[in-house]
């Protein structure tokens, strides 16, 4: 099960990279993740939320104990 879950997480990462690659090559069909984030960042609530999530990821993996 542990290996299966590891594969699922790796597959998710691969899917994100693949989708983003597709979006960069076909900007009229799908917007890339950075472009979407750039649009979202225009609103303060989104800016704060994305900032908090990013900060928490650093805190969780570099500071907090498991």
């Amino acid at each position, binding site marked *: 099960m542990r290996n299966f879950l590891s594969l699922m997480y790796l597959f998710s990462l691969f899917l994100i990279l693949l989708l983003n690659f597709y979006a960069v090559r076909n900007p009229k069909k799908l*917007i890339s993740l950075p472009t979407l*984030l750039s649009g979202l960042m*225009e609103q303060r609530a989104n800016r704060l*939320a994305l900032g908090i999530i*990013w900060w*928490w990821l650093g805190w969780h*993996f570099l500071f907090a104990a498991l």
Partner: protein
Amino acid sequence: MKGKILGLSPWTGIFAITFLFQLFRKELVDAFIFGGATIVLLLQPLFHLTKSAFPLLKIDKRAIWTLISFFILLASFLPRQSLLLSILFIILGVILFLELWGVGEHKSKLDRLHTKGAWVWGTVALSISLIELSALVMARVTGEDERYATISELLVPQLDTQFNRFLFGLIWIFIGYIVVRHWRRK
């Protein structure tokens, strides 16, 4: 006031659920962080601060990169849960808050392509969250943390070496750069 409350962001609900979930996990620090985030997002429609209400950070690019490199190096060498590292993270959080809060919203509507993109990327994020959540719930129910490994369970032990912490710090800062790079106060 009624309109402002009705204009609450969906993020408020997401953070409120995460807060309750962290309480369920008995992760009190994370519960405090997400509880605070919920309150900030709950209150933010009520405040319309102008640019002059917060100091505009005027730091040139060279200084930013020097600070970032310094932060990553320190974070790589400082032990987990050290006081200095927690202070560094809090300072970073305050600077980020000042940078992201200080100006009102632009009122642009999402076009069809952006809406479609939001659905596609949102579905991917939700799917990953569900896999992680399933693993976490199963680990709690069965008591087999190793068998039902979450991303933290897999990643955190790898971050015990300074090189790996440095590498993770670089990737984390790079992701932050991608998120923030397109937005600066005008």
